[in-house]
């Protein structure tokens, strides 16, 4: 900061002092008003360069709504095929979530093919699939909607008297009714009812598991009766959520981060000695090592990932190697700086006892840099779990791959939110763990190493 001269004698000195202070204030004022103005101008430029006003046209509210609704709720489809007159009940309309023939949720009374099926949507809403491809929807407070569909005549709709409300859209080929209780779609080929439920469907057990629909207490009783293994198996191999595979993917991501971070440390430590002024008197070697570190760091992790993916193919090893290569540059730099700040007295002390060079490094140098080194390593390990997720999305390994796959389908948003929750828990747990170890290192183990 600016220091004032201590010459306070006479008016001239005071005037000069005042002028100096004025100049200082002027500069500060300019900075205080100029800086926000520059930031604002830049953000305005970015606002138009990124075409934010045009975003409104491109953004899809429909997508946002599906995403949010899908991430905390699911729908069950009840479908009747017009030709075979067969009724199927399927969660999210997926084959994996289809109820077997003899089994229905309690709100569906499934009839024989060609018979009557009654679907309760709650709050008095009731849909009936009647023989002859007729469908009735009883909406409380409105009346009875009757539909007959046929290949030749299309979809004929009979509504209660009065104007057609906005939640019904009827045409010659299609009827769509959307109420708070659910949705009904009728076309020439099929009639379909959707009912929405909160939660993640079949999260614990799929429909083919004998434990589907059991409460926690019942499950516990079964577990005590020696079925714990089978229960765990049903959960772990749930083919809707694939808990086992997800756990393995999380482990793979952690593995990439672990191998990459600690591998990089093993590679970088000896090289750092070569780049430190006090251990390598040869300027050429030092310079070469430093430029090597800069180069490795400058070639971004993205480029390393691409290059290595070409050689090793997709998988966790590629991700681990990409982290390893990128971080060895960073570690080389950090370690060599730590080595240059090492206190010489300890090394002299050790060598005065007649220690050989290796012993000098082991007992004079390593103990001094261990705390810095370990805390940096742990910090990078934690931040690399995040990088491993991202690299996994590019090279195809770990939870990053599962996540991108789920996002690409554009409908499994409940799985996307499940993975996001798991990733956040994993990263936060590691954050906590590395913080705990670092605190232990700094406060607990002061003297020894």
């Amino acid at each position, binding site marked *: 900061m600016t220091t004032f001269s201590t010459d306070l004698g006479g008016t001239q000195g005071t005037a000069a002092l005042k002028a100096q202070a004025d100049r200082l204030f002027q500069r500060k004022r300019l900075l205080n008003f100029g800086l926000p103005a520059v930031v604002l101008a830049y953000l305005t430029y970015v606002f138009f360069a990124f075409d934010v006003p045009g975003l409104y046209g491109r*953004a899809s509210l429909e997508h946002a709504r599906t995403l949010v609704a899908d991430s905390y709720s699911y729908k069950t489809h009840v479908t009747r095929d017009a030709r075979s007159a067969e009724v199927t009940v399927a969660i999210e309309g997926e084959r994996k979530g289809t109820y077997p023939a003899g089994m229905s949720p309690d709100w569906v009374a499934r009839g024989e093919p060609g018979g009557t099926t009654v679907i309760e949507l709650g709050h008095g809403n009731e849909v009936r699939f009647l023989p002859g491809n007729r469908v009735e929807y009883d909406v409380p407070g409105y009346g009875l909607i009757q539909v007959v569909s046929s290949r030749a005549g299309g979809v004929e709709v009979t509504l209660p008297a009065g104007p057609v409300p906005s939640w019904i859209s009827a045409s010659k080929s299609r009827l769509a009714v959307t109420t708070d209780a659910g949705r009904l779609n009728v076309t020439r080929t099929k009639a379909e009812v959707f009912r929405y439920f909160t939660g993640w469907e079949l999260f614990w057990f799929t429909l083919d598991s004998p434990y589907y629909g059991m409460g926690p207490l019942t499950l516990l009783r079964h577990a005590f009766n020696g079925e714990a293994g089978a229960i765990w198996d049903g959960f772990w191999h749930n083919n809707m959520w694939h808990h086992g595979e997800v756990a393995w993917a999380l482990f*793979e991501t952690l593995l990439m981060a672990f191998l990459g971070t600690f591998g990089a440390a093993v590679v970088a430590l000896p090289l750092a000695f070569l780049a430190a002024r006090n251990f390598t008197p040869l300027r050429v070697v030092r310079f070469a090592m430093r430029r090597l570190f800069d180069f490795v760091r400058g070639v971004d992790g993205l480029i390393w990932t691409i290059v290595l993916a070409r050689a090793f193919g997709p998988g966790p090893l590629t991700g681990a190697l990409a982290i390893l290569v990128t971080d060895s540059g960073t570690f080389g730099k950090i370690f060599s700086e730590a080595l240059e700040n090492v206190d010489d007295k300890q090394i002299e002390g050790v060598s005065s006892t007649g220690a050989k060079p290796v012993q000098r490094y082991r007992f004079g140098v390593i103990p001094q840099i261990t705390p810095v080194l370990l805390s940096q390593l742990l910090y990078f390990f934690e931040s690399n779990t995040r990088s491993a997720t991202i690299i996994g999305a590019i090279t195809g390994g770990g939870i990053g791959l599962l996540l991108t796959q789920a996002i690409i389908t554009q409908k499994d948003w409940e799985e996307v939110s499940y993975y996001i929750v798991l990733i956040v828990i994993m990263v936060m747990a590691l954050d906590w763990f590395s913080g705990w170890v670092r605190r232990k290192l700094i406060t607990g183990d002061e003297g020894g190493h």
Partner: protein
Amino acid sequence: MADLTAGPDRIDEIRASYTMLTRKKRIYGGILLALFVALMAAGFRTADMRNAGSFGDGITHVFDYPAEVLGEAVEKAAQLPGNLLRFLPSLVETLNIAAASTLLGAIAGIVLSLLATRGLARWPALIPLFRRVMDILRAIPEIVIALVLIFILGGGPVPAMIAIALHTVGALGKLFSEVNENASLKPVEGLQSVGATWPQRMILGVIPQVGPNYVSYALLRFEINIRASAILGFVGAGGIGYDLRNAMSWGQGRYDEAAAIFVLLFLTIVLVDQLSGYFRDRLTHGARA
């Protein structure tokens, strides 16, 4: 004071206990080292097994791709300046994403960090809440937010900018609140005694003290964000990463474009790295005085 009259018995005891301690420490160290080596080896084997190509096969081919790209780039060296110029707008977009997200993230990070620092917080009871918010923002990888936002907002720089900005809020917020903790409270108290409101106390009493540290951390973050923005471009968020993926998917014959992008990215990162290193050094060691 220590008892200096202790006899040889005592010294033996001390020596024995010291030797035991040393031995214990050595054993622990040895076990830890062995565990670490075993973990690394087992981890490597697992990763190697799960990978499409094995380490042994791949290691001989590491330089194949760079050699191919380089070879073609050298062959078409005359086109390099043209290509560099062609991809410059994408590079500017990548830089803009990084800069805008750093700025927005830093501004929000400052506010959050002030709200989460003991002694400065506007609502002290809510400190844990703001801390958890920052933890969660920090924990979500950018790619997650970016991919979800690309689905809603369509491709382009805005999803990447928002994604990186949100992560930056968490990362910088934590660093800033550590800086805030070291700020002197005297100016704040002085301002409070003359009736300054909370925003006034923060802007006039705290920010001038910690401003240089803020800028230093933000510069470091800008460096990181350039890399992040290049990666997000690769998954569809515009900028130079997007061009890189396109150039790569064209495959052989268009490697000169990939080479030009590699060069641009490398130069930018090195340049920003050097510049921010220089400025951070000036800020923390006060070369201005």
